[in-house]
């Protein structure tokens, strides 16, 4: 690591995002900072316009009574105003945090209390509706700002303000931003990112200005191509996630990444097609979804076209293997080019992914088959590993181009990774988070006395690359990248009188499912009063009426959960779990042993997942990874 590089990190550690924004606005006022689609057109925002909007918004927030150190909560899908409000609140000295757009009302209430936001910013009327019923129980709340107020008819809450009003008309935004940025201390906290905790309620990781800047610079430093030339990217990951924030807000301040916002998140395929991004950050779910869409489309194509694709695939597989083995020469490059012209480039063009130079996957484990398939198609998919607690820094990432799938690459410069005796990944770096918001004991659990962060993930070294064996043992990380605490969900579901035990499953899956053990006494009682005849536990558990009962119970309790936490399918265990019996997946105190549970009831679990997509992808790759 050179002296110059160290100084760049040091330099950034003394910066804030609003300050960097103001500097961009002075240095390159006319260069495009980002593009946001409104009414069919991508409106180009220069750095000067961007900074001015942020400055005006910051003034507006101050006028609403926002004081330094207070919190601002933002809820909604990724959009330019989300980013503007976030930076404006930071500039005004406040601490911002995002709330998942899928959060349930109870989750929202918890985070509003926990974070103690004085200003709530809602993307549109939908989120206002979620907040208003609990607004009276939030005494500290000063204002509710609505970004898109087009559906706000007959809302008369005194705290409601529209984003346009907050912006005002003619303030000198850039000047205001510079003044405010000057007053900021880079060591002060900038924002909170909520992550699931063991207690079931999410914990807020507090991250400071300077450390986040330096942390996010590890991404640019690890992938220097981000700063080499102008890159187009598309923003679609939730901005309340650290990964989404990096891509949309921070990395563009540190590189030449130009984010693009589509008309709405639902229009993602359209947005990708129009923008043809060169750099994308994604969670594995999207890679899987796009791949399965392509494979399903190819399944119904004409024989000629299918034959062309198959031929390209044969060539592509060989070329990808050659790249992984480092034996790719000019001949291989030529063959890959031919295969791409024949089939891959037309496919990618339709997805808008034919210009992608770097496709960075993080947030959840990326199935190696999926990565391999994209690489055969000629897309440089690399996997990176980070934690909310590392404040926006990557811990490791595959450098590529076209790395062999199955690991998360090399550790970024300036950071250290060590494996504990049990194989847990321990990380030490210069730019951690500041601690969990209001939970100092949790902070001490996460970072030990020597300054090592305990990730909870189990890893292994493989030729200098870090390989993740098991992620976050106690949590479920869905294929969508959302970390979920199963204990929390199970506790809620166990509230039903008919359910004795519930085991939530969903690690690296598309959705959550549950294995359910019925409460024999309660259900038997119910059965008698409903004329359901049975002979014993198994016959009762497998009765169609009982299944309907359980389904109704789960549906009722699902309402208390955020959308991603809801149980989509379940299976009723055919026999009672007996702790006395040897090898049963429950401890004597009836604690469920998750892995054993899965092993014992694997067939039941798998029957709840429609794994067509995964099978499609795996079949396409044809076991080429096993070598």
């Amino acid at each position, binding site marked *: 690591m050179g002296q110059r590089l160290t100084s760049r990190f040091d330099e950034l550690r003394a910066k804030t995002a609003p300050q960097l924004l103001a500097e961009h606005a002075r240095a390159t006022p006319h260069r495009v900072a980002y593009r946001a689609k409104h009414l069919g057109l991508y409106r180009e925002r220069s750095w000067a316009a961007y900074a001015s909007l942020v400055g005006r918004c910051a003034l507006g927030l101050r006028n609403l009574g926002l004081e330094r150190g207070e919190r601002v909560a933002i809820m909604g899908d990724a959009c330019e105003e989300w980013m503007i409000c976030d930076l404006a609140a930071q500039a005004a000295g406040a601490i911002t945090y995002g709330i998942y757009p899928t959060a349930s009302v109870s989750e929202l209430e918890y985070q509003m209390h926990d974070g103690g936001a004085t200003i709530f910013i809602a993307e549109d009327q939908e989120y206002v509706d979620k907040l208003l019923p609990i607004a009276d129980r939030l005494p500290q709340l000063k204002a509710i700002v609505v970004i898109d107020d087009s559906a706000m008819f007959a809302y008369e809450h005194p705290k409601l303000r529209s984003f346009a009003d907050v912006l005002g008309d003619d303030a000198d935004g850039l000047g205001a931003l510079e003044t405010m940025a000057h007053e900021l201390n880079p060591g002060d906290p900038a924002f909170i990112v909520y992550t699931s905790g063991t207690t079931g309620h999410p914990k807020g990781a507090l991250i400071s200005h300077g450390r986040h800047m330096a942390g996010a610079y590890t991404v640019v430093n690890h992938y220097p191509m981000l700063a080499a030339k102008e890159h187009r990217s598309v923003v679609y990951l939730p901005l309340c996630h650290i990964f989404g924030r990096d891509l949309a807000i921070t990395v563009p301040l540190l590189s030449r990444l130009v984010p693009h916002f589509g008309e709405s998140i639902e229009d993602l395929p359209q947005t990708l097609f129009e923008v043809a991004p060169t750099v994308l950050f994604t969670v594995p779910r999207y890679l899987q979804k796009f791949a399965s869409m392509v494979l399903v489309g190819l399944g119904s194509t004409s024989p000629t076209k*299918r034959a062309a694709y198959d031929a390209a695939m044969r060539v592509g597989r060989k070329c990808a293997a050659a790249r992984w083995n480092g034996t790719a020469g000019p001949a291989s490059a030529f063959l890959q080019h031919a295969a791409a012209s024949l089939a891959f480039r037309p496919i990618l063009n339709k997805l808008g992914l034919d210009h992608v130079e770097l496709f960075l996957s993080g947030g959840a484990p990326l199935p190696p088959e999926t990565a391999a398939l994209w690489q055969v198609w000629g897309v440089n998919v690399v996997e990176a590993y980070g934690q909310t607690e590392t404040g926006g820094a990557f811990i490791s990432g595959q450098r590529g181009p076209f790395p062999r799938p199955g690991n998360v690459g090399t550790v970024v410069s300036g950071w250290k990774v060590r494996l504990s005796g049990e194989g847990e990944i321990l990380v030490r770096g210069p730019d951690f988070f500041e601690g969990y918001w209001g939970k100092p004991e949790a902070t001490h659990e996460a970072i030990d006395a020597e300054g090592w962060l305990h990730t909870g993930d189990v890893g292994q070294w493989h030729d200098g690359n870090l390989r993740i064996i098991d992620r976050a043992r106690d949590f479920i990380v869905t294929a969508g990248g959302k970390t979920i605490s199963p204990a929390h969900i199970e506790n809620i579901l166990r509230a039903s009188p008919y359910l004795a035990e519930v085991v939530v499953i969903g690690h690296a899956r598309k959705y959550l499912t549950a294995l359910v053990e019925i409460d024999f006494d309660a259900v038997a009682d119910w059965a008698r009063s409903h004329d359901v005849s049975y002979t014993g536990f198994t016959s009762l558990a497998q009765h169609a009426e009982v299944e309907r009962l359980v389904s109704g119970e789960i549906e009722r309790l699902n309402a208390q959960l955020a959308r991603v936490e809801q149980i989509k399918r379940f299976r009723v265990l055919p026999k009672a779990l007996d702790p006395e019996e040897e090898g049963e997946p429950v401890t004597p105190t009836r604690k469920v042993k998750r892995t054993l549970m899965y092993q014992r009831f694997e067939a039941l679990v798998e029957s709840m997942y429609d794994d067509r997509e995964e099978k499609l992808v795996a079949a396409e790759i044809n076991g080429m990874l096993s070598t």
Partner: protein
Amino acid sequence: MSQPRSSGYLRTRYAQDWMLLETRTQRVGFALFAACALALPFFAGAFHLDIANQVLLASIGAVALMLLTGYAGQISLGHAGLLAAGAFTTGILFKEFAAPFWVTLPAAAAVGAALGVIFGLPSLRLRGLYLAVSTLALHFIVIYLGSEYESKRGFSTGVVIDPPRLGSWTLTDARAWYFVLLAAATATVLFSLNLMRSRTGRAWRAIHGRETVAGALGISVQRAKLSAFVVSSTLTAVAGCLFAYYRGFVSAEAFSLFLTIQYVAMVIIGGLGSILGALLGAVFVVLFPYGIEAAMKATALADRLSSLIFAVNYAAFGLVMILFLVFEPKGLVGIWQRVQAWFLLWPFKQKPVGK
């Protein structure tokens, strides 16, 4: 408006919606086509050049009829009459007043516009077959007036016209004619393409769809119909004027009902509701008799059937039209679109990215 055909063309101004050629493939394709069109007269012989000129002339008339029939949905069998009106305006002005082309051309256009109003008036009350018959009647009136002029003034074999003259330069060379006609056809196509994307063009399509609904949408059905007839007739009369100069000769016999049928065939075989269809139809119909002739020569039937060559031509022409109507109602442009889609969707069969 429409979707770009390739990824990576994000629009930052609404004006970009109007671009006729948006993607690189489209631009390169068009550039190649334009280069071929410009190079053609330097490689083609006199015979082929004459065919090319005929195609260009026909394409102006075909596009004009496409606007009226293909887009606005108004059936007209008066197309030959309108061509004749343009040609006779030119001939009469030249013979009586020795008018130069820059007088005869606008005059032909004016006469065309006036006739468009007259042709269009029945359309306000009549539809379908009745409208077709009323336009047919007007065709005969125009032809009658033309032949009356010929016989009364003693040009019973036709009116001879000198080539257009600009200063000391006269337009006689076939190659020069090619470029003039190419420019005229290009201008017509561009005008029509843009007109169809304008308020007027959308009104025409609306009345084609259903007049009542169009009226309910606030479109003045009368004005839309009359404007369709006027624009179409004006273009047709200009084509008639160019035709007169190109041939150097105007005669009522040249504008028989068969000419009308040929133009209707261009529009139908080309594919209704498409400017490209009009162009493809013009190429097809102009080349068709030459193709038949070549086929007869090749099969050595020409000697035996030499007296029947016109009959064979007509019969084959009729047969082709029936076949198109039955098997390919969307015309040549339908075939073209299928071929295009096959490549555009490659390697899929349907669009995989659902919207």
